[in-house]
């Protein structure tokens, strides 16, 4: 391919995919607990602005990421209180959360437009960075990117190997049964929802602090919706979330690279392809006996213990 360097392409792809990877990992845990929060975009953009503002105010991007996680978590708590304690519909509440987040972030960001911050340093792991091929692709990134990869493993471990994960999945699969066994369904779901918000907030801040080093209204431009698609694409598995995020992020980066290299490409088909692929994956899953039960049994359902 004329002019396209696969090493640089893969390295860019990892950076471009990190925001959606973080947000999708968070939503994965939320959905595994049986909750569907469509407010990812709203939580991401709130994280993006709060993280950026905190970085400007404190001078520390790491405090910025902490602030973003907190902001995303607080947004998620609104959703959690409404859906878990006040039993509002999750789809409607999630959509309202996105609307609220877009508006609130624009308000908060008013005084931060037009400011740029320095790029936080990359780790540039010594020795490893010089490995041919692998070095430039994998070992010259920033700490948040590595954190996102670590979270893939941690969430995989938590969901499949830990007792806490087993309980969380039980709650998502059948909340009545979990309740009957004495597990605190609401508390577990609140924890998952808050974690999801913190991850979405961190993902948003990765865009404002790491990638663009500035705040612009609406800068997440739909990343939250892509994150939602990735969770489904991944059939609610951590490793596949990574694959999905890199694939979805990769489609955009590749599309732009092909254009630059002079290829004529059907832009629309390529932009729509992640969503079409997700539908195809859903269909394939439904055909396979093993995968059919991947969808958390109580996804989106309201729980109220009657006694």
């Amino acid at each position, binding site marked *: 391919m004329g002019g396209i360097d696969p090493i640089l392409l893969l390295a860019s792809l990892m950076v471009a995919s990190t925001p959606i990877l973080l947000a999708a990992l968070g939503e994965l845990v939320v959905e595994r607990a049986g909750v569907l929060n469509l407010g990812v975009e709203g939580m991401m953009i709130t994280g993006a602005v709060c993280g950026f503002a905190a970085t400007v105010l404190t001078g520390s991007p790491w405090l910025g990421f902490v602030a973003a996680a907190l902001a995303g978590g607080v947004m998620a708590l609104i959703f959690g209180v409404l859906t878990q304690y*006040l039993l509002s519909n999750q789809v409607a509440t999630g959509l309202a959360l996105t609307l609220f987040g877009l508006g609130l972030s624009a308000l908060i960001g008013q005084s931060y437009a037009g400011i740029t911050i320095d790029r936080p340093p990359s780790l540039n792991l010594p020795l490893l960075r010089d490995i041919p091929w692998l070095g430039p692709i994998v070992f010259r990134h920033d700490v948040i990117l590595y954190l996102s990869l670590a979270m893939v493993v941690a969430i995989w471990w938590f969901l499949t190997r830990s007792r806490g994960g087993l309980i969380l999945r039980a709650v998502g699969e059948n909340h009545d049964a979990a309740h009957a066994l004495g597990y605190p369904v609401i508390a577990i779901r609140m924890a998952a929802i808050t974690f999801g918000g913190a991850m979405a907030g961190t993902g948003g801040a990765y865009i404002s602090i790491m990638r663009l080093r500035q705040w612009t209204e609406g800068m997440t431009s739909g990343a939250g919706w892509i994150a939602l698609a990735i969770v489904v694409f991944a059939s609610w598995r951590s490793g596949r979330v990574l694959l999905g995020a890199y694939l979805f992020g990769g489609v955009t980066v590749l599309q732009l690279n092909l254009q630059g290299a002079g290829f004529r490409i059907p832009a629309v088909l390529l932009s729509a392809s992640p969503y079409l692929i997700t539908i195809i994956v859903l269909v394939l899953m439904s055909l396979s006996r093993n995968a059919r039960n991947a969808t958390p049994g109580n996804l989106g359902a309201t729980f109220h213990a009657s006694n």
Partner: protein
Amino acid sequence: MAMIRLERRADPSNFWRYGAPLVAVLATIIAGGIMFALLGKNPVEAIRTIFWTPFTGRNAAYYLSQLPIKAAPLVLIATGLALGFRAGIWNIGAEGQYVIGALSGAAVALALYPMEGRWLFIICIAASLAGGMLWAMIPAVLKVRLGVSEILVSLMLVYVAENILASLAVGAMKNPEGYGFPGSRNLSQYPAVANLDIWSGTGIHWGVIAALLSVLAGQILLSRHILGFQIQVAGLAPRAARFAGVAPGRLVMVCMAASGALAGAAGWFELAGPSGIVSVDFNVGYGFTAIIVAFLGRLHPVGILLAGVLLAVTYVGGDVARSSLGLPAGSIQSFQGMLLFFLLALDVLTAYRIRIGRKARA
């Protein structure tokens, strides 16, 4: 240990059914007022502008006429969605069906341009109904045949539809007399298919009539028709529904088809009237907002009508506040978000009562 908990009422409270929305609006006024005050604006003035300008003042006639224009697509879409929501069928891709419906109508209109005859408008409406319905049939068929989640498929199809819209706006549907700019011919200026005010200056176009008819039809369906009964049963007790002779697959198909068709028609009425042009910015989120409207209206056709009008007021009044008070766009969006939160939150009081005290020992 003292605690707050919810206790299901034996019967839904009629007081809170009507009282909760009022309390929610009051709460929003207080919370929103605080936000406007923090922004350095006069909160009373801001709230008054948002809620009262459409009804009072010298320009009230115009603003009043804008309420049906803003409410109609929301009500039309939400009425269709509510049928499915009641039966536990989750079409959340109305935005996509709205876009495809509009594009289907536009395809017919642009293909026949400049043919004359008002019957063309009818053909375009039929095309939009069919387009929206077919787009909704994709998740419906996948649900019925393969058990694939309709929530996820319908949502994914929104983005596919948006990409199709973007490509047609800069490509196949581009106005040949538009100097290469993206966007189609202005269909509201093509008399055969234009969806204009029926009575000039009232804001009542054919989409408004359709919305009112859908509310009426929804009301009759739910209260009088066997299908309405099946929908209610399926939502409340899915297992009992099977014994009552409800075919779940057929119900999914019917509910998805109805909601898709209405969303598609809403798209066409908007395109041929207020919007006029197939452009990348054509869809402004009515399909998503309608989901919220459906819940605000308690999935009840008349409630949806009221909820649609309430949201229309905040749109129209909010835009007035933006220009006359210099409020940033984000503050209006946040205000609407708060209103939705409070409405969704307080709905709980209809079916539950709050108990403060020790946990019951029973």
